[in-house]
């Protein structure tokens, strides 16, 4: 756990996201954005941990995050995504969806676009709980059970799926360019295809047994049928979208709600999850036999690529480590990445070798040497 220090920021952090780095450059990310919640005045802030010309002389620790700029935000920041290098989309508890623009020259933020009542009830505001983007398209979901499709730079709504869900939708992610996955508070994973007209999902998957609300969802970066979700009971579920109605494997991860789950974007054998119980887990899957994978040749089909560059296209016939079904067969290592006795870790993001997370203890933790 060395290399991780707390930066206290005087507001509870609900979301942290790295600014994307261009895939060609091998640079580590150095800018991240955070959103706050439960404050009378909430802010979105941009921080820097690199030698960006903004770090001050009295840095106590190397890489202590420095505030670059911040901007007032109406309502809690319930989700935050980078649309591209300059723009950030946020989902607010007032039901608004906002695009902020970061001006690099003046190091300021300003509101570039605002959809005020993207999510609403007939008489009240409904919080917008999730936003995901595939520039220039933006998909948002909210507690009103609606799915909205916007386009950056266009005023109006591109498409609305009314009554998509009778309960609150908690998170959304892209499965393919035209398909999204949503999770809701009655424990269902729904697949929506934008090419289809109408308001029905293409597929509904759920756990049999207790209807535990699901809070987060993430797709494997290379193999698009593998999806991970986390829910109220802290269980990590891995689903295979091609087959069945049921999750492929269930693993006990945390003792309370799991707020976010992320596959590492370039090294998907690694998974990260964070939870209300104050822990951040790093899951690492590897082959179960003692012989190193390069000596196994064709005998063992559960070969996991350990190189940093994932095989292009992803050979479908390889059984992915996450789908070994029985977690005792595959070898799954989990490590705690944060000191104990913390308040809830609300959000995490991982890119390259850098991990950032934000907690209810009003602190941000940055780890620049994640072992992957």
């Amino acid at each position, binding site marked *: 756990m060395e290399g991780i220090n*707390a930066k*206290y*920021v*005087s*507001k*509870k952090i609900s979301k942290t996201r790295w600014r994307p780095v261009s895939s060609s450059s091998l640079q580590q990310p150095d800018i991240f954005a955070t959103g706050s*919640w*439960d*404050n*009378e005045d909430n802010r979105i802030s941009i921080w820097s941990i690199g030698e960006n010309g903004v770090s001050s002389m009295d840095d106590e620790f190397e890489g202590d995050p420095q505030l670059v700029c911040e901007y007032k935000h109406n309502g*809690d920041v*319930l989700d935050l995504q980078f649309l591209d290098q300059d723009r950030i989309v946020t989902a607010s*508890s007032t039901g608004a969806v906002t695009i902020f623009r970061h001006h690099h020259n003046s190091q300021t933020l300003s509101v570039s676009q605002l959809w005020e009542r993207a999510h609403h*009830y*007939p*008489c*009240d505001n*409904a*919080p917008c*709980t999730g936003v995901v983007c595939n520039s220039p398209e933006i998909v948002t979901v909210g*507690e*009103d*059970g609606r799915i909205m499709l916007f386009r950056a730079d266009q005023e109006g709504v591109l498409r609305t799926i009314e009554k998509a*869900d*009778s*309960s*609150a939708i908690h998170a959304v992610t892209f499965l393919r360019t035209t398909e999204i996955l949503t999770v*809701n*508070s*009655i424990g*269902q994973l*729904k697949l929506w295809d934008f090419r289809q007209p109408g308001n029905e*999902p293409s597929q*509904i998957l*759920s756990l*049999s*047994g*207790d*209807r535990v*609300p699901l809070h987060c969802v993430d797709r494997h970066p290379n193999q698009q049928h593998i999806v991970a979700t986390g829910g*109220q009971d802290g269980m990590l579920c891995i689903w295979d979208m091609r087959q069945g109605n049921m999750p492929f494997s269930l693993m006990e991860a945390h003792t*309370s*709600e799991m707020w976010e789950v992320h596959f590492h974007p370039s090294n998907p054998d690694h998974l990260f999850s964070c939870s*209300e119980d104050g822990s951040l887990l790093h899951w690492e899957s590897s082959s179960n036999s003692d012989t190193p994978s390069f000596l196994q040749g064709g005998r063992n089909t559960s070969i996991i690529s350990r190189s940093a560059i994932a095989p292009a296209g992803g050979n479908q016939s390889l059984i992915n480590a996450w789908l070994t079904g029985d977690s005792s067969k595959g070898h799954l290592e989990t490590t705690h990445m944060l000191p104990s*006795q*913390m*308040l*809830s870790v609300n959000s995490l993001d991982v890119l390259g070798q850098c991990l950032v997370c934000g907690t*209810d*203890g*009003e*602190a941000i933790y940055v780890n620049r040497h994640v072992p992957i």
Partner: protein
Amino acid sequence: MEEVDVEPTTTPIPGFDSNQKHLGFVWGPGDILVYETIYKASGGSAGGCPFVHEVRKDEDIYSPILRKLFNESHHIFVGLQRIREDLPSKNKKPQFVSISKNYRSVIRACMEELQQVAVSTQDAALATQYGNQVSILLAVELIWNLCEVLFIDAAPAGSLVLHLLDWVRLHKADVDEKAREVLASESPAEHQAYWDVVISYVLQGRMDEARQVLVKQATLQPAARAMFKLLDNLLMKMPIFNPGETQTLTEFDVKWRHWREEVDRCLQDQSFASNPHLEDICKILVGDEDVLLEHKELLSTWYHFLVTRLLFSHPTVKPTELHYYAQSSMHMFLDTRSVPEPLDSILLAAFEFDIHQVIKDCSIALNNWWFVGHLTDLLDHCKLLQSHNLHFGSNLREFLLLEYASGLFTHHSLWQLAVDYFDHCPEFGRVYLELQIERVPLDTERKALKVIRICEQRQMTEQVRSICKIMAKKALRNNRLGSALSWSIRAKDAAFATLISERFLQDYCAKGTFSDLDLIDNLGPAMLLSDRLTFLGKYREFHRLYGEKRFSDAAKLLLSLMTAKIAPRSFWMTLLTDALPLLEQKEVIFSADQTHELMFCLEELTSEKSVPNPDRPMQDEDIETTKIELLRLALARNLAMAIVKEGTVEV
């Protein structure tokens, strides 16, 4: 009524003239709501002002920089509570000292940040406010440090003076600054602050640094070299008690007395007569109080004077003797002013080892409970507080922590920290938490989930129920039946689940189709929460089976709904009407027995309705009777066909 210790401060309410009107007020958990009444001071009444003012006592929790203090100290607090009880107290002392140092470093970090902001801000009012906060934090850290030295570390005689010296040095940092300035100048020995620097170093017991600076002067005056060499020698030879060595206190005492005699001899010999500064230094080394008092500006505080005095007159002072010297130092140093500053009396109380007085004075002087709460908690863990039961049942530590945490709970964001503090108040913490947690405003589902998780972890089922009910009602109001249902499932609230199912059924009767099919189709074991909910699920299943043309299964299900009494009576008519198409099929679906049961149900239903209701319009009555007649006909026909079918024997 008890006497008030200090004069209460008055806060003027803007726009209110106390001569004109009476003020009304009501207490809140951390503040007062104040409003202008319609009653005039001199009888009669007049129109009032429509404003309600909120008067807060504690501004600090709203300061963004001080918030970091609260968060970091919360982390340390929780860590402290989890130190295992079974370790012997000998091993725990270093742990407590390090925790105390942690707290202090947090205070220092906050202070530095405040200082930076105070310097850089443009707004004068803000700068003063920050400046005030900095000075309060300085005082707080000073007191905490002293408490750590005296109470937690509990240094014995010998090391006591050394620790006190460290304490003074830490809080008098301007000496180093001045020294830097002097040494950086062209000719340090002729700098006007030169002798101040030397004497300050000596007063703080920093002999090596004093010697280094003195060398500059010595080189300038080669003629007086012998004198400087002598002083340098004296300074070098001053014995310092080293607790690590095997030297006992008495040995040290003997050595020190020898050295002191030597210095005294030098003074008597008039060795330093030609240079008044060096003579002063020599007199200081002997502990001449008059000379010490001459350098009041360099000492600047009576406690510095006290420690210097002890260093040069009584380095082996015992903790129990401290208070005598403290009192006399204070009287000697301060003029006969009217009232000593609060800080002075607090420090004096600390030197007298009167912990309760320290806590009491700090509580009065500071405007929030942060400092006294954490300090008392730490002292309690060191087992230094006698179990001092207050009138209202809990002990001092718990009282202070409860006050602090209640103050935190009024903050829109810091309430989460307060939960942990309540957890560690064994007597009343739970009750306080139960009352406060229900009043946290719930704007989003996410916040409600966090609050519920807090309650569930502490088995506060009542609170869980009430919060879930609030959220479910909110959802219902916005017609979000699925959300409402998931909240009632979380609370295991059967009554509410019944209510929601009724809504669904009403919707069905009104529209003819089910809304929110994704919810009803996938209820799973949650269906068993309430009878009505089970019925809803099963009824929907019936529709599904019918849609899939699995008529016999549908029929069985329909019948079981009525016979197992899952269906509410009011719905039986609808169910029977649903049975009609099944009865009318060419193929016989209901067996004879099943038909008998259906008839029985119909009879039960109609026997209740035998009395015609005069309020119901005639048309409805007609429809009802027609339906019943149709049913009777269909049932009879079905019975006939069933009997025939069952009686037929395949040849």
